């Protein structure tokens, strides 16, 4: 198979995503008051409603509706005031009623978008001229001189539904359903509030798909509506992709990818599938509309089932659930619960704190990191913002548990040139998880560097006197020798019982040598 960049020279990939997110931060299920299960024993959190017992009736969880409205507002969706729950029928025992309560043609949230920023080599993967005739709702892509671009990815809808039970398959290989001779059902997860987001097929590269998922995850995490774990399955993504020749307007036949449980899987599965389809098409073959299973270990997709006819789910409005006609007050209450979202936070960090954009984006993207940064900033002061961002982005990920006050303290020490970046690591290592004060560690270990010129100037004088050869070399244009001289100053100062700051020595040496 050819590589992705090669394939994308000739072919345009049209990608859409369906993302299911469990509202794990709620206390109870979608239509009953059972506790949301995390690691409970099988069938520990069930009641007549979520077990689908005859005679049971659903009552929608208000906070779940509020959460999906928040999700819609945060993704620029139109909040549909009038909508209903529908019943979607299929016989499968993970659905206790053999129908899923979901939404019909009108979802709570419709027609939104998320803007993706794509830069660097990945930016070249998207064709400059799009194949598809833009419909009246297609949003324009903005390209910069360097090829980087901002692509608004449209969201068709976000609807509310309930999750299915978990099944354990026995007797087959690796717990897979294929080959199993019996299966066991645990209804703990059945009825967990689930929101399904469907994008328009606006994505063109695996990297865009990955970025979209990442951005969606950051947004939902910031909203606090889910723990958004791809690994544990509280956030699940199906990708569909079809190919068409560059310049072609008609869509090709798409395949759907399942079992995507990491951002990398999403990227790699789409990459594999794009290259596979290109190979099939280039050999004159036909792509079948089918569902494919991503096997991360073998880095390939395999057929799960071929869709010959569209499924007929016998959808109709659920008579047990009153329709919705959301009030202004309800929507405004949801809006008021939306915190500052990652993009706005990033922009604020850049404009008011002067952070570098990538650092700002990385900190703003993760609510826990952003919270730590902002708490530490309060303690350390805005002047240290750049240093603090450096600490948060480049140092903290290596440590398990560093508090905001510890981070602030380290940033202050760095900003005052009292320790070096390398020493900062040593200090963090010592205080990680302990609650100890970094200042105390610095003093205890004698790490604090002097920045007092009066103390350091005589040391410089002595070293210059001792090293005439190097002084001459420097003046002859060998700037590298400065490092040796700084080292000599450090040694000499240490011998004299102080710790000189290398940056300051550097400055003083230059001043003398270039005078």
């Amino acid at each position, binding site marked *: 198979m050819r590589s992705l960049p090669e394939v994308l020279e000739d072919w345009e990939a049209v990608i859409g995503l369906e993302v299911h997110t469990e509202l794990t931060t*709620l*206390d*109870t299920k979608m239509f*009953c*008051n*059972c*506790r949301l299960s995390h690691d409970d*024993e*099988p*069938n*520990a*959190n*069930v*009641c*007549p*409603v979520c*077990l689908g017992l005859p005679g049971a009736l659903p*009552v*929608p*969880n*208000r*906070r*779940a*509706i509020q959460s999906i409205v928040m999700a819609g507002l945060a993704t620029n969706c139109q909040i549909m005031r009038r909508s*209903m729950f529908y019943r979607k029928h299929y*016989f*499968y*025992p993970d659905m206790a009623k053999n129908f899923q309560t979901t939404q019909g043609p009108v979802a709570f949230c419709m027609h939104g978008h998320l803007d993706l920023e794509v830069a660097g080599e990945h930016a070249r993967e998207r064709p400059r001229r799009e194949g598809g005739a833009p419909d009246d709702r297609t949003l324009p892509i903005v390209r910069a001189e360097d090829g980087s671009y901002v692509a608004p990815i449209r969201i068709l809808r976000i609807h509310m539904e309930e999750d299915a039970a978990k099944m*354990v*398959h026995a*007797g087959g290989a690796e717990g897979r*359903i*294929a*080959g*199993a*001779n*019996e*299966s*066991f*059902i*645990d*209804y703990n997860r059945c009825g967990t509030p689930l929101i399904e987001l469907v994008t328009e097929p606006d994505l063109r590269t695996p990297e865009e798909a990955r970025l979209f998922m990442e951005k969606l995850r950051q947004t939902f995490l910031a909203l606090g509506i889910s723990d958004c774990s791809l690994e544990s399955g509280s956030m699940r993504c199906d990708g569909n992709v079809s190919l068409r020749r560059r310049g072609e307007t008609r869509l090709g036949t798409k395949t759907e990818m399942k079992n995507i449980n990491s951002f990398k899987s999403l990227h790699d599965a789409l990459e594999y599938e794009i290259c596979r389809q290109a190979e099939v098409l280039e050999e004159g073959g036909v792509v079948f509309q089918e*569902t494919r*299973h991503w096997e991360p270990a073998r880095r390939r997709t395999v057929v*799960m*089932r*071929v869709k010959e006819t569209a499924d*007929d789910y016998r959808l109709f*409005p659920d*008579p047990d*659930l*009153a*329709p*919705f*006609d*959301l*009030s202004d007050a*309800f929507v405004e209450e949801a809006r008021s619960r939306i915190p500052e979202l990652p993009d706005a936070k990033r922009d604020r960090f850049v404009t008011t704190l002067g952070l570098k954009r990538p650092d700002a984006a990385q900190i703003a993207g993760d609510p826990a990191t952003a919270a730590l940064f902002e708490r530490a900033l309060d303690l350390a002061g805005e002047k240290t913002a750049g240093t603090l961002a450096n600490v948060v982005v480049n140092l903290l990920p290596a440590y398990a548990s560093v508090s905001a006050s510890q981070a602030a303290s380290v940033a202050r020490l760095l900003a005052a040139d009292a320790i070096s970046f390398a020493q900062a690591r040593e200090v963090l290592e010592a205080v990680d998880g302990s609650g100890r004060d970094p200042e105390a560690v610095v003093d205890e270990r004698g790490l604090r560097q002097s920045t007092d010129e009066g103390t350091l100037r005589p040391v410089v004088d002595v070293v210059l006197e001792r090293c005439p050869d190097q002084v001459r070399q420097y003046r002859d244009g060998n700037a590298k020798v400065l490092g040796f001289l700084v080292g000599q100053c450090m040694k000499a100062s240490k011998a004299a019982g102080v710790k000189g700051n290398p940056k300051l020595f550097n400055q003083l040496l230059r001043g003398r040598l270039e005078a």
Partner: protein
Amino acid sequence: MALSTEDVAGIADYARIALDAQELEEMTAYLNDAVRLLEPIRAYGLKGVDPTYHPIGDLSNVMGRDVVDASERALPLDDALRNAGSVEGRYFRVPSILGDGEGDR
């Protein structure tokens, strides 16, 4: 257009109701008769008439609180499994799902 026995067999398959040949004939006759009874529905001029899915007037936005109920309605395991035909430990049990040649979902 009348339903054929093939049509009815397809519906029975979907609805998970096994019918033998004679039952299929009878069911086909019944469905065709029943559908004839419904013809008045198709004879109506209904342009611009909103459907009434819920005979509840203006009642809307009925929601409940996100508060755990661990006692009133929560079912102890033995009640949850009480009426099940096959169980295994704490689980409900079903026979092979793919044995029928159907695909995964």
